[in-house]
């Protein structure tokens, strides 16, 4: 039960992290270029990948047990 709750809390945490990171005003802070690539492009896909890996890891921890 505790583990399930911990898992739920982590996912809710990921959700809110995603909401904050993928929306303005934080999103508007990213600008310019990164090694020739547009910084917002790199930033958005980076955060996106982070969310996916996060969800996968939380699910994997659950599955492994």
């Amino acid at each position, binding site marked *: 039960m505790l583990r399930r709750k911990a*898992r*739920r809390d982590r*996912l*809710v945490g*990921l*959700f809110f992290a*995603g*909401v904050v990171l*993928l*929306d*303005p005003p934080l*999103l*508007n802070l990213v*600008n*310019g*270029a990164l*090694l*020739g*690539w*547009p*910084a*917002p*492009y790199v930033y*958005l*896909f980076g955060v*996106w*990948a982070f*969310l*996916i*890996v996060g*969800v*996968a890891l939380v*699910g994997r921890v*659950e*599955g492994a047990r």
Partner: protein
Amino acid sequence: MSQQLIALVAIAYLLLLFAVAYLVEHGTGRLSRLTGSPLVYTLSLAVYCSSWTFNGGVGVAARSGLDFLPIYLGPTLAFCLGPFVIRRIVRISKANRITSIADLIGARFGKSGGLAALVTVIAVVGLVPYIALQLKSISSGFAALTGTAAASIDKPVLLDEALWAAVLLTIFAMLFGSRSIRPGEHHPGMVVAVALESILKLVSLTAIGLFIGYGLFHGFGDLFTRAAAIPSLAAVLAPPPGHFGVGWMTQILLAGLAILCLPRQFQMLVVENTDERHLDRAFWQFPAYLLAINLFVLPIAVAGRLMLPADTDPDNFVLAVPLVAGQPMLALVAFLGGLSAAASMVVVETTALSVMVCNDVVMPALLRIKRLGLADRSDLTRLLLWVRRAVMAVVMALGYLYMRHDSAQFALVSIGLTSFVAVAQFAPAMLGGLFWSGASKVGAIAGITAGFVVWCYTLLLPSFVQSGAVALDFVANGPFDIDLLRPYALLGLAGLDPVTHSAFWSLLVNVGAFVLVSLAGREHPVERARASVFVSESSDTALIWRRTAPVPELMSLAGRFLGRERAAAAFTDWARTRGLDPEGATLADAETVLFYERLLAGVIGAASARVLVGAVVEEETIGVDEVMRILDETQRVIEANRQLEEKSQALEAATTELQQANSRLKVLDRLKDDFVATVNHELRTPLASIRAFSEILRDNPELAATDRLEFLRIIVAESERLTRLINQLLDLSKIEAGGAFPAENAPVDLVRVVRESTAAMGQVFAGAGVGLDLSVDVDPALVTGDHDRLVQVVINLLGNAAKFSPPRTGRAELRLRQVGGEFELSVADNGPGIPPVDRDVVFERFRQLGDPMTDKPQGVGLGLAISQRIVAQHGGRIWIEEAAGGGALFKIRLATRPVPIAAAAMPA
């Protein structure tokens, strides 16, 4: 490329897909095993990526950079919460055999046919633009590939590629989605075909992206660097400060809701889910797919802007870039990718819509028309199929008409978003209904209706303006020039783009009406009970609704919609799990009725199933009092339970008491045995000596006179001892039987008692050589009771003191004094004393200290027992302490007799 070749390739590709689907459903080989794979499930969810993604995404990227992304970030965020939201939807839907989102919302609110029909109508109206989008995309892709004019609105209808695309897709949708009626609306062939299409979509976009990055440019860094040098592209690569705003957030929200509310997503995510565990992987794999398919959208868009003439439609960049680069084969792959995207969307969407319209609008209506006699027809599966096919054709026709009429001016994405706002209207009722048991049916109807009306007014209606169906100044000035009613600036809310504006107003009105009406309305208790059962994910609804029906009738009913064999097989399976005999059952109980209702719901939807089953079922109409009674009964059971618990606790306590009593009884029993043995022994000893001396006297007449006298003295003494013993025994039993108080209830002066006793015992002390000191501190000492009995007690104590004090050096002391409201009599000696452990047991009958085997008993063993009982009967206490010299100190306390003041004042 020639039109014929491309059309042939497209048809061949669709036929290939159909062959795969057919083999999956009918074959036994590897293909049919694909249906249970979690990867296929995940890929089938990618039906989300329609032409909007494939062609429209690049279009948006070419115009304004990263603005295409919210449509995929929304589902990603929604899937973060998937384990609670999506899993719950899937569980509830499985338990209730839900076949569509209209079915789910209708079933949640009391299997309401009206609500399900409302949702269905909105879904059809809302999705027509979305289907039009796919047709437009195919036709313009076809045009781009063949180099003909793109604007199909000017063409004669029969020469319009979009019409042929629509016809072709309709046929395929019928082949995939309505070939047969299956319980639970599973379409495994369609799922596998869509999964294949998803792979092709991903592969072709990735191939084009890599070709641009490494075939046309020196890596993506080179591409971006070159683009950055061109001022007109700066906005695409680096958005101006503050670029992302409310519109971005609204699109994330809309997409997050759409992934749950779009009929085709619901179909794939919930209805086609064969195993709940597949969700675990899909929760991260589906967002990963979305990320992968969008990875090269921006590079393709930038390359298109760099390479293509300015007047090229950005929605066609995916095809145009390979063509310009001289790669017609790659362009063909891109076309097939776009075709896959459009075809999978159209097939699944029309299938889902046809199920909704058929189950929630057409069939309930047809079944209600008694004249048609549909409920009595023996086989309705064919009718169901044709209704669905007709619905598909109508939906496609509407989509085509919308496209012809309206959409030429709009980019793909803005058409798609129009549909997103429409389906988002389902979200409050669905999510609210699943997590809030207070949500009411009226609230749901009010919310959905209000949101839909606002959507029509602020998005759908204005979209007809440019085609001339609505007056042009309607948007600019509002109806009848009322400024506040301008559809793009309702109540003066200007400054938002139309989609954000509409989403804000429609969802605000929707949620507001839903919540307010739910809160304000007094919900019927029956509805509330249904809601809580539905929300609790449990499948025990049968216990509440008591319905019975003959099994054969239910069986034939199910047979009409599923086919006889399928219905029989399903019932046999089910009966086996419940341990019933499928042949023997004649009258179905409530659970069996529910099973049939759910079985039927899997084919024709919950609302229709309820109507049909209701026709053959005898349902006890369950009124408020009935619900109250059930609740009452539950309450009573709980109460009885509680009482039972209390009783069992009391029983437990009684048991421990009984056990204690039992062990006490066992001790007493042992004591009784000891008592009998002792009495036996005590009586026999004097008797034996009396008998022995009497025999000596009888047998020896010549005995000397002194001897004779001595023997006679012994006989007398022993007789006296015997008499005393018997007296004491009688005394004891009399006292024990006597109750709480002595027979005499007179004033007794303890001083007299003490003096009488010492006088009586004087000889004994003298004989034993023990000194006796007497000290009386109070005079008189009046108590209430029996004088003689108290004398008996004191004599007994004095006798013990004389007996146990050492001869010659022995000293005993009798003392009488007042302690508070009591008089205390104490008798001390300087004998061996009584160890603390024995101080209680000496008051038991025949309890004599010392080893019974070696020590000669020094008394009968009844004296202290009698004394204790007498004292107790006088309301006093007797106990033993250690005397100053180590001997025993007996103490008695008796309450003083209340004395009149006059008497107390009298001199003694």
